[in-house]
């Protein structure tokens, strides 16, 4: 194992070899090595957030024709460090009547839920925390823990606005989990495995975004909704909810929610890059593992850049629009997509890979086009039948009922 | 490595705790939680026995797993309908307490 070709794998091998040399039993060596790996990965990910915050603020600044942070260090790169120091020194305030246990557990759980996602993501050929055979399902299931932390925060704060924010957030997360899981089924079908590393390896010849662009689009939209970024950021709509579930938090506890949000945004970009953009696959990645890590980071940053572009350019949805988009467009589309992909996959099983991919691509584009036409049709019908006064009345009634009564 | 007995005793205890909850709690949602505990105990039992039978024979053995899948489906359906009923009853009678839902007593 050459150090330059695979520094991570080299260090891991040396470390486990050193642990084994200490005379510990094999089981203990395994446990200690895994614990150290988890510790290093978690610390690295959390420190990485410092850079992410700077990157995002700088980009958003450019989009809004500002400079962004530019005072601390070259190009303002140490600005998040200064922010962190400020947040560390702030006072912890626990509101009266708060449920102490839930209130304090929530920020920890929020960060932990995001860090858990990293345990099954393959960073390169040799570096993967655990190659679970149900890895993709694990990624979705851990999202449920994040929801739990938001509920705990909203309920534990003893604040109406926090509770309302948590309600909204969880309603949104649960709703968008449906198209997220359904669209993630398409790569699973294409790869024939639930293991994340297996899905990456199946994309050796062609990335799944080429074979299933519709699934990739649904997955991307749903994962933006999962991280609560604009245009789905109505969980922290200042004008309606003050700031959402984390209104009562201060100091480091607020900082942990902040870190969790940024890290989650980056992590879902990484999941997208892994599932649809080939993960660490790239020229020479199988022989030189460190290249795989570089490829993965490049792809992830491209996806992350697109999410920031969305955040910087799109206005916020109204809650009924958000629910309509999910239940009336994304969910039926992903269901139709799964059926179509299964049928086409069965019909073209004998063909070479190239024609199979072309068939998948055509089906995807056909479905996307049909959805587009249907949406246009319903939009034009709506505008034709509406009287001038109706839009206002509609907003008043549906916004209180979460879009259920339209 | 772990005796089957441990799993069976654990699941029996979980089932009985759930049964107690379903029988003794006032709140309709708490009764549903008790039912969930019982269903979970059933799942533990099913998977423990699946493991037992899978190690007894060499051929693939999935019946226990298939049953567990069905239990998951039933649990999801039960919770959805049960909670809808609770919410509906609460909306009309302004209480989730089953003792106070005595409309049929006249």
């Amino acid at each position, binding site marked *: 194992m050459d150090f330059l070709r695979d520094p991570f794998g080299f260090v891991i091998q040396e470390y486990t070899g050193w642990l084994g040399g200490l005379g510990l039993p094999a089981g203990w060596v395994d446990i200690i090595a895994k614990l150290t790996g988890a510790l290093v990965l978690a610390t690295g990910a959390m420190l990485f957030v410092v850079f992410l915050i700077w990157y995002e603020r700088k980009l958003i600044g450019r989009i809004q024709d500002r400079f962004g942070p530019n005072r601390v260090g070259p190009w303002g790169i140490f600005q998040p460090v200064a922010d962190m120091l400020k947040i560390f020194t702030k006072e912890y305030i626990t509101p009266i009547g708060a449920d102490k246990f839930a209130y304090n557990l929530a920020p920890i759980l929020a960060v932990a839920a995001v860090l858990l996602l990293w345990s099954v993501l393959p960073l390169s050929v040799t570096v993967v925390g655990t190659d679970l055979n149900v890895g993709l399902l694990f990624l979705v299931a851990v999202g449920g823990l994040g929801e739990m932390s938001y509920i705990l925060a909203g309920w534990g704060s003893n604040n109406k606005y926090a509770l309302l924010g948590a*309600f909204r957030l969880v309603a949104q997360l649960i709703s968008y989990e449906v198209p997220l899981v359904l669209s993630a089924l398409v790569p699973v079908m294409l790869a024939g495995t639930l293991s994340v590393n297996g899905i990456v390896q199946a994309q050796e010849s062609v990335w799944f975004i080429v074979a299933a662009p519709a699934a990739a689009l649904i997955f991307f939209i749903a994962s933006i909704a999962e991280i609560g970024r604009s245009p789905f950021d109505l969980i922290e709509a200042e004008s309606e909810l003050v700031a959402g579930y984390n209104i009562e938090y201060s100091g480091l506890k607020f900082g942990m929610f902040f870190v969790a949000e940024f890290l989650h945004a980056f992590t879902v970009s990484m999941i997208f890059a892994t599932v649809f953009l080939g993960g660490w696959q790239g020229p020479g990645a199988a022989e030189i593992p460190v290249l795989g890590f570089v490829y993965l980071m490049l792809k992830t940053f491209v996806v992350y850049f697109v999410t920031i572009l969305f955040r910087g350019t799109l206005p916020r949805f109204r809650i009924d629009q958000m629910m309509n988009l999910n239940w009336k467009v994304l969910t039926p589309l992903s269901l139709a997509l799964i059926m179509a992909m299964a049928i086409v996959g069965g019909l073209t099983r004998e063909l070479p890979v190239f024609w199979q991919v072309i068939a998948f691509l055509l089906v995807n584009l056909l479905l996307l086009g049909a959805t587009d036409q249907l949406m246009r049709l319903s939009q034009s019908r709506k505008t034709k039948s509406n009287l001038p006064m109706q839009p206002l009345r509609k907003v008043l009634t549906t916004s209180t009922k979460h879009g*259920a009564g339209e | 490595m772990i005796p089957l007995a441990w799993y069976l005793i654990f699941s029996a205890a979980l089932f009985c705790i759930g049964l107690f909850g379903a029988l*003794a709690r006032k709140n309709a949602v708490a009764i549903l*939680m008790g039912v969930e505990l019982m269903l979970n105990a059933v799942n533990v039992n099913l998977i423990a026995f699946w493991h037992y039978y899978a*190690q007894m024979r060499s051929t*693939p053995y999935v019946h226990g797993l298939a049953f567990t899948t069905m239990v998951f489906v039933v649990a999801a359906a039960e919770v959805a309908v049960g909670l809808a009923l609770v919410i509906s009853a609460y*909306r009309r009678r302004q209480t989730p307490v089953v003792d106070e839902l005595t409309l049929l007593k006249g």
Partner: protein
Amino acid sequence: MNGLQVVFLLAALVSLFSAAMVVSARRMMHAALWLVLTLMGVAVIFVTLQSSFFAVVQVLVYVGAIAILIIFSVMLTRRVMEDHGDQILPGWRAAGLVAGLLFAIIVGFLALWQGFTTMLVELPADADNLLDLGQALVSPQGYALPFELASVLLVAALIGAITIAVDRKEDQHG
């Protein structure tokens, strides 16, 4: 006693304790949170049974969906921030007696069975149960019919839940 047994005992103790808290906590919200802990403990128990698929499904379905639904309905059905009064019916002693008796009966009968003390050994890793399970669920010789019935049940529950819980305008007047 090996590592797996320690894991099992820890998970079992945590689950049973939090299950007891679920049925005895005064505040409904706390009961719901204890329920989450119980479900996570049961997920760990599934892992010790080499059924990681069901452990993940347990977290996905129970913690991610069912527990959150329960928490939602707890929040939607309480009059004030604090729950008031006793949460236990007056006849709880009888219920406890029934539950305790049932436990004694189950364990007593199981102890008579000779397979009770079998050690569960590790299954061979190449037995890919997940694949077999998936094929069994859709093969006509296996569980295709129950699987379809389960899907119909889910759809029926979905429609039923919406029909029951929808807030119609005329209901509020009449």
